């Protein structure tokens, strides 16, 4: 069981990250803006999961259960992108995908 000082330290870290993500959003990093924003979000979430939600102090099974949802979300995202990302690849005269990038 973590001590209260751990909680305060984690909270301070979360605050710094929260303000940092807002600040960085105003800096032009090109393609890295969303990547950095998401990286910070993942870091914050990990801190909350590990310390506030005690996964760091529980067994390995809890850890597996905790990340299962995220893994499956990644499956959903990856395989859906397999469609949207490749919609324009095959050149078909006069074909218009409803949405593709």
């Amino acid at each position, binding site marked *: 069981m973590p001590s209260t000082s751990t909680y305060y330290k984690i909270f301070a870290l979360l605050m710094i990250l929260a303000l940092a993500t807002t600040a960085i959003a105003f800096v032009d990093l090109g393609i890295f803006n969303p990547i950095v924003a998401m990286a910070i979000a993942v870091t914050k979430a990990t801190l909350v999961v590990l310390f506030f939600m005690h996964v760091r102090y529980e067994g390995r099974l809890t850890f597996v259960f905790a990340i299962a949802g995220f893994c499956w979300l990644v499956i959903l995202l990856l395989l859906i992108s397999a*469609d949207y990302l490749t919609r324009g690849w095959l050149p078909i005269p006069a074909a218009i995908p409803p949405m593709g990038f």
Partner: protein
Amino acid sequence: MGASIEPLVERTTNYLNAEHSVKSWLLTTDHKRIALLYLVSITLMFALGGVFAMLIRIELITPQGDLLSSDSYNRAFSMHGIIMIFFFLVPSIPATLGNFLVPMMVGARDLAFPRINLLSWYLYITAAAVMLYVMVTGGVDTGWTFYAPFSSLFSNGRVTLTVVAVFIAGFSSILTGLNFIVTIHTMRAPGMTWGRLPLFLWAHYATAVIMVLATPVLAIAMLMLGLEHVFHIGIFDPALGGDPILFQHLFWFYSHPAVYIMILPGMGVVSELIACFSRKRIFGYSFVAFASLAIAILSFLVWGHHMFVSGQSVYAGLVFSILSFLVAVPSAIKVFNWTATMYKGSISFDTPMLYALGFIGLFTMGGLTGVMLATLGVDVHVHDTYFVIAHFHYIMVGGAVMAYMGGLHFWWPKISGHMYPEIWGRISATIIFLGFNLTFFPQFIAGYLGMPRRYHAYPPEFQVYNVLSSAGASILAVGYLMPLIYFFWSIRYGLRAPDNPWAATGLEWKTASPPPTENFEYPPVVLEEAYHYSDEEAPIA
């Protein structure tokens, strides 16, 4: 002497006679009683779905749309699909046999969360009530697939309430799955290691994983569909810049794995039956167990094979096609191992075994036609035709329902404490097998000839196959009515069931029939692996 026999008849209190009030049933947290509540409710829904199926089959006897109007026909097949999928097949084996057996098989007194189990049944009943309300107030005409933008913007059926019903039923399913996973993880009796788990439990574990991780995506897709239907703003409407194909992605992300929610528990049941009636350990136990998990995981990666002609990118089609072939491999492994289990066994042909053998045959045919559907070029032709209808009925009815019936017969002595009439059981199993094939085999041919699904009227050259199919459906209906009658009959007149009528292994057979409220008189300890039918050492093949 007569007096000394008397106590044997009512020798102990069991879960059925422990309490008698209506409240003791409706507020029970006993997993066995909840299983019975589910059994009654899904049987009613099955009958209802069956009525719609009969309407469809009667309509299709002639090529003209003469019995029902086209709107009524569309409602009939939509209600058939929605009721059979969400209110019968998804809860069928897990919520009845699974609920009854999972705690007993792990050697526990109950599921990990008995009250959540009851909540799950109430959610199911609420959803079913909403669905019944939809039915009596006009029904819904979207098909069970709810494709946008038809469902969201063009349908004149009761889409909103149907969506609400499916949403609620989804949460019922999530709670059941959650309960199973936690129970299998934390409540196993001493000695019940993972390597000793009956395959029924492995299958239910895999099923529960799908229930927990896929169903929420269906829920959110339904929610967004409902929002679009009610407020006419949403993300699937192309006029607003949306993509209707996205709905199909989200829908099939659930609904393809959902197919495995329906069939995996059936595979678990069949593993138990084949082992028991061959008196053999399942051949390749660990392969069958891991095949269940492999199917559960791979099932999430193949949904796009429902969308080969939808306008999805052809490259995504490639990915989904090859992954679909991969998921066929563990299914094949199971079929081969079940067959090999019979090798040098001691095979008896009691009713459950007849169902299990029927399952293997029909599932093989369903699976092989599934392989054809996974083939990109071939799917383009047979997609959305009766070929697909035949294929998934071979899996759902020939597979899941056969296994469900087999399991019900196998565990009926344990559930009710009475034996069903064996001869009638065999007769009805045979009738169901024959009626099933007559109903659905002709649909393969009609489908390859090009008859599209969901057609109210059709060109006359397909009539032969539709007449055969409708004839088969009436035989099938008789086959399903017989068990309904003799199960009820057996409760009153059936012979008292011994604790272990099949000389089967498994903890559920080591307690009384019917079991006491907390399942076991003494907490069981497991000392041997599953399917320990012989004390002889097994040679390594």
